Each structure stands twice: as structure tokens, then as C-alpha cells.
């Protein structure tokens, strides 16, 4: 018999209590504080209205969040290896190809370099997979579900097809396994990735300064110069617009978009219309999960 605690866990309702995800409560609170302050400062309409948070699209997000969480715990947890196995696999490959390397203890400098490499490799691979999901005729139908959102809330981050969850999980495993196994090949005991609030320190910092506002109705922009380095919430919101979904694929760093010609700067007055159609219509969630085209297409 499923207990209440287990049910909460299976539905993902314990995310705010668990470090290591974007919905961890300190990140939600910081987003709320920053959002309210920004809204007050720029005299913007509220981003906390019922019209947004109980919009049919937002309700789809909530349903999908719980559904995908059940899928992750029941299916993906079985078919996807743990991160340690990716790292071990990488270590064995280095050992086979390059011979055994006697390991040195990791110094602070090495651990800082390791943390930076993990962050950069993960952020860039997220950019490329994300971009690929937009440009590939096979992957776009999977990613399309994320872009059919007509309003954005932090839960929209999790509005993804289970196959996308699988792809991003594999990406994380491969990239983290690659970087970590390289470091472990040379450095043994004492290797350490610096974390904050359960996330890699840079990700934790990004989460604390408003990653949850990326999926929100609040067009928070950074200074123009900063938007060349970091993707602001408004830049990501632009990516969710009909006109902008060929831009701003980055997660935290804007560097990749800048280097590969997909960066678009925004201002807080930019007009955003979210979705993939000029005149968006609600789409059936089941059809989207089955990767079927909308009925009138």
C-alpha cells in the first residue's frame, strides 16, 4: 500500500524539500523575492496571478510534471545507469587506451578546475543538445511539447516529453562521466566538485539569482553587456516566443549562443507571445505525448 510520503515522492511533490533540483525551496524563495522586487521596480503587471498559474497550459505543466516524475522513477531509473557507472566506464576506457596511471591526490586547484570543467562541459552540451532538438526533424517533435506552453511558470521547466528526459539524462551521464573519469584517471582520493545547496556551485548560484524566473511571465533582463555572458530570464523567454525559438538555446552561459550565432538580446519591454503558433490553441496533452501532430494540422 502506497503511503502518503511515497505518493508525494512519486508525484515529485517533494522537489522543494530536496536539494539538487531547481525547485528546491531556497531557489523558489529567491526567485520570488527577486521577481517581486523587479516587478515593483519596473512597475510591471504581477506574475503571480491566477490567470497565469491556473491557465490551462500551466495545468498541463503540473499534470506532466507528475506524470514524467512517475515515468522517471518507474522506467528511467531502471534503464538508465547511475552516474557512477558512466564514470567507471570512462575510467576503464582511459586505462585500456593509455595504460594505468598512478593517481595523485587532488589539490584545491585541481578541484576548482574540475568544478569549472564539469560546469562548462555540462552547460555547453546542454546548449548543443537543446539546439539539436530544435534543428533535427526527429527531435523537434519531442521538444515541441516544451514549446507549446502558452504561459510560463517554474514548473514549465519540467514540461518535457519523457524521451527528452531520457536524452538529457544520457547527456548528463556521458558528459559528467567523461569529465570526471578524466580527472579520476589522474587524481584519486580527494577529488571534489564544489557544490552549493545541492547543486554544482555555479548552477546553485544561477539558481539563486533567478533561474526559476526563466520560465515565468516576468521579463527580467540583465544589463546588455551581461547578457552577452549570461542568459537572462528574458532571453530564455524570448526563446519561448513564436519568433525567437531559433535563438538563445543556452542554459546559464550566453557564450555558446554568442560563439555559434544564436544569441538574441532582450529588454524588459520586449513583447513576448509564448508558444509555437502565431495564434496558439490548446493542444491535447495525450496527443503531444504520443508525438502526434495537432488535429487541425
Amino acid at each position: 500500500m502506497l503511503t502518503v510520503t511515497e505518493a508525494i515522492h512519486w508525484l515529485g511533490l517533494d522537489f522543494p524539500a530536496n536539494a539538487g533540483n531547481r525547485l528546491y525551496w531556497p531557489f523558489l524563495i529567491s526567485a520570488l523575492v527577486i521577481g517581486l522586487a523587479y516587478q515593483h521596480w519596473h512597475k510591471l503587471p504581477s506574475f503571480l496571478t491566477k490567470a497565469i498559474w491556473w491557465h490551462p497550459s500551466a495545468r498541463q505543466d503540473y499534470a506532466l510534471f507528475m506524470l514524467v516524475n512517475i515515468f522517471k522513477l518507474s522506467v528511467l531509473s531502471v534503464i538508465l545507469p547511475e552516474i557512477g557507472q558512466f564514470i567507471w566506464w570512462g575510467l576503464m576506457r582511459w586505462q585500456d587506451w593509455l595504460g594505468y596511471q598512478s593517481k595523485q591526490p587532488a589539490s584545491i586547484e585541481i578541484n576548482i578546475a574540475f568544478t569549472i570543467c564539469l560546469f562548462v562541459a555540462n552547460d555547453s552540451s546542454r546548449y548543443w543538445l537543446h539546439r539539436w532538438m530544435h534543428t533535427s526533424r526527429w527531435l523537434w517533435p519531442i521538444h515541441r511539447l516544451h514549446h507549446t506552453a502558452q504561459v510560463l511558470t517554474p514548473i514549465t521547466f519540467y514540461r518535457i516529453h519523457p524521451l527528452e528526459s531520457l536524452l538529457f539524462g544520457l547527456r548528463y551521464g556521458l558528459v559528467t562521466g567523461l569529465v570526471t573519469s578524466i580527472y579520476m584517471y589522474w587524481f584519486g582520493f580527494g577529488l571534489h566538485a564544489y557544490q552549493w545547496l545541492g547543486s554544482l556551485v555555479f548552477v546553485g548560484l544561477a539558481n539563486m539569482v533567478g533561474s526559476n524566473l526563466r520560465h515565468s511571465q516576468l521579463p527580467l533582463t540583465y544589463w546588455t553587456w551581461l547578457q552577452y555572458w549570461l542568459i537572462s530570464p528574458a532571453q530564455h523567454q524570448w526563446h519561448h516566443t513564436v519568433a525567437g525559438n531559433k535563438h538563445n538555446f543556452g542554459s546559464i552561459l550566453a557564450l555558446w549562443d554568442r560563439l555559434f550565432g544564436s544569441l538574441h538580446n532582450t529588454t524588459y519591454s520586449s513583447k513576448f507571445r509564448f508558444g509555437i503558433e502565431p495564434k496558439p490553441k490548446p493542444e491535447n496533452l495525450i496527443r503531444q505525448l504520443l508525438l502526434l501532430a495537432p488535429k487541425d494540422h
Partner: protein
Amino acid sequence: MLKAIVRLPLLALFLTGTSLADAPTTLETKIKPALLQHLYDQVLVADSQAAINSLQKLQQQLASQNISHPDWSLLQDSYRDLALHWKAVEAMYIAGYLNGDYLDHPRYIDYYHQGNESIYDQVSKALASDITLNKALFKHSNKGINALEVMLFPNQPISAHLAARHIQGAQLASQTMAIWLGEIAVFYDTDQSFMTGGKASLSLLVNRLIDSSYKLAYWRVGEAAGLTPKTKGVLHPQSLEFQHAKLSKAAVTRILETHQKIVRNPAAQDLMTVGKAFGVEEDIAFLQARLNATMVALQAVPEPFADQLTSDAYKTLFNELAMLQNAYYFMLINSLNLEARILDADGD
């Protein structure tokens, strides 16, 4: 109202931030000096003392022999004692990391798996020649523990003249070894930096365990049976360690026993204790289980190893040793503070 909404979360954030900054107990504080002292005394100091004592005993026996008609059996027993104590020292050798002056000492004592030269051929030729031994055995590699093995385990019968050359050569080699081994023993006995090194000290031991587990699997067992990428299906019995003294199995046993002293010892001053404090207790327990399984697999292989290279039991031993290395790797991997499951990673 807006102020209240803003203030409350800010207060919560402040409290969270400060408590999280203070909360984690660092690994340094979890490694007790008593634990390091115990490992140092019971493994590093004890083994190096035992090795130098057994070498001195061998030197005394060599000095008291009738060199034309020595008691080979007595000398060979002492050699076995020395060789196995040395294997324990070599497996956990960290003096070179604590002080760079000691980095090369093991290489001057033990030439197993170093270079392509045949110490057996070189030493046999030198002993059979008429050149004075000081000149004939001029190379460092002709005065190490592998050369000593050739000198003390001659092919019988042996002439009185050649026996004398063997014993005199053994005296020369043991004198050279006594210098290096003596310096190691004195260093361990006097240096205190290990006890104050905390995480770094433990890291040295863990790195040695991994290094040693790799060499056990791939050098000491796998290579001879063609089970490694290097030998790929071709038997290579000359890769066995101490094959003339027939100590290949005993050497593996002694090294694994040294691992056990670090991983789990009766005084509970071991990796298991550190693992409990660091949240990787399960990994250490798994490691201990693998060590036990490896010991069982080792006991199942009859001696000498040279006659077992194609047996199933020997292959099982190789697999167990490879899995032991994996267990060490998983202990390291799981002690990393990475997100344990890839499911937490999502798109954007």
C-alpha cells in the same frame, strides 16, 4: 504586505545560507589522528621494520655460511621471509610522497616489471664469469631483490666455485638492499608528517591501494596468462613475480593481507571507520566483500602459479582481482559529491 512577503523569505534565506555554510563536517575532521597513527604504526612502520629485520637475519646467515657448501634451504627460507615483508612495504609505499628524496627507493630494491632486461640471464652470466663480482654485478638491477632470488635459488647441482660466487653475490646484493631498506625503515620510524596530514595522508594510502590492486590483477596475475591487453591470449610465464622462488602466490597473498589491514582491521582504525563517517560505508563493505572473495579465489589456485596459467581457477582469480580494482574505483567515485542519479538532470 509586499514588504512582509519580501522580508520573510529573505530571513529564511539568510538562515538557510548561514546554516548550510556551517553544517557540513569536513572530511578533515572525520579523519582522526589516532586512526592515521594506528595505520602508520601497524602497517608502514611494522612492515618496514619486519623487512629490514629479515634482511639483517639473511645477512647474518650469509656471513656464517660455508660459502662453497651453503645451506640453501636455510637461506631460501630467509629469502622468502624477506621477499614477503618487502611486498607489504612496496604495496603501501608512501615515503616517496612524504619526502621526495625517497621516491626511487623501491625502484632500487625491486626491478619486477621494470624495463625489458632479463635479470635472471644477466645475473646468471655475471656469476658464471671470472670477473670480480663488484664489476660483474655493477648494475643496480643486479643487486636488488630479484637478483638475490637468482643467487639464492640456483639450478642444482651447483659446483663449489659457483656456489661461492652465488653466496658472495648475495652478500653484495643484500648489502646494497640494506642501504635502501634501512633508509626506508628509519624514515618511517622518524617522520611524523603522515599523522598530521589528515585527508592527504589517507589519500596516499587509497592511491596506493588502487595502484596495488591494478598491479595485482594486470602485472602479477593477468599478464602471465595472456589475460591483459598487453599479452592478449599469449602465455607469458616469465611475467610471474618470484617464479624461481615459487613465491608468486605468496606475494599476492601478502599484498592482499596488507590491503585488509588498511580496509578493515581488528582495532577498527581503518577505511571502514572513515567510510562510516563519510557516508560511503556500503562501498567499503562491498570492498571488503570483494577482498574476501579474492582471497577465496586465491586459495583455490594451487601452487605454483606457473602450472595454473590456463586453469579456470586462475582466470577466476584474475577476474576477482580486476573486480577488486573496480571496487576501489567505485569507492572513490561514490565519495564524490556528484548528483548520484542522472534523473535529476533535465532540459531547458
